[in-house]
C-alpha cells in the first residue's frame, strides 16, 4: 500500500480505457462494455481493502466500535 497503489489503479484505468476504445472502434461494443466492467470490478476489489483499512483506522482512533 503506498503511492504505487494509486499508480497501479491509474495504470489499470488507462489500460481499460485503451482496450475500451480499441474494442469500440473494431465494433465489438458488448465486449468493450464487459472489459470496462471487468476493469471496474478489479479496481474495486483492490480498493475495498484500502477502504476497509480506512474505516477500521477511523473506528479505532475515534473509539467508534
Amino acid at each position: 500500500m503506498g503511492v504505487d497503489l494509486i499508480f497501479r489503479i491509474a495504470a489499470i484505468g488507462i489500460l481499460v480505457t485503451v482496450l475500451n476504445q480499441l474494442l469500440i472502434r473494431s465494433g465489438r461494443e458488448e465486449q468493450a462494455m464487459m472489459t470496462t466492467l471487468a476493469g471496474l470490478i478489479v479496481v474495486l476489489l483492490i480498493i475495498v481493502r484500502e477502504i476497509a483499512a480506512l474505516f477500521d483506522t477511523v473506528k479505532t482512533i475515534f473509539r467508534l466500535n
Partner: protein
Amino acid sequence: MEIIQIIGVGLVSTLIMLILRKQNPEIAVLVGMAAGAFIFLLIAAKLSAVVDQLEEYAARADIRPMYFTSVLKITGIAYIAEFGAEICRDAGEEAIASKIEMAGKVIIIAMAIPIITSLLDLVLKIMP
C-alpha cells in the same frame, strides 16, 4: 517530511483523475477514493497520538470518560460522513451526498442525547 509526500500524492491523483474522467469516470471516482483513504492513513498515526494525549489530559482533569468519548465519537462520525458525502458529490450525485450528511447529523444528535439528559438532570437537581 510527510506533508510533502501527501501533497505529492494529492497532486498526482488529481491529474490522474482528470485524465480518466472523460473516458472512464467510474475509475476516476475510485482513484479519488483511494487517494483520500491513502492520505488519511498517512496521518492516522499522528492523529491517534493526539487523541490519546487528549484522553490523558481529560482523565487527569477528572472529566467523566463518557463525555470525552462521546465528543470523540461525534467527531469520527462527522469525519466519515463528510468523506462519503464528498466522494458522492465529486461523482455528481448531490442527492446521495446530502442524504449521507443528514444521516450523519441524525446519528450525532442521537449520540449527544445522553449528555443533554445528564445536564438537564443536574440543573433540576440543584434547583433549590
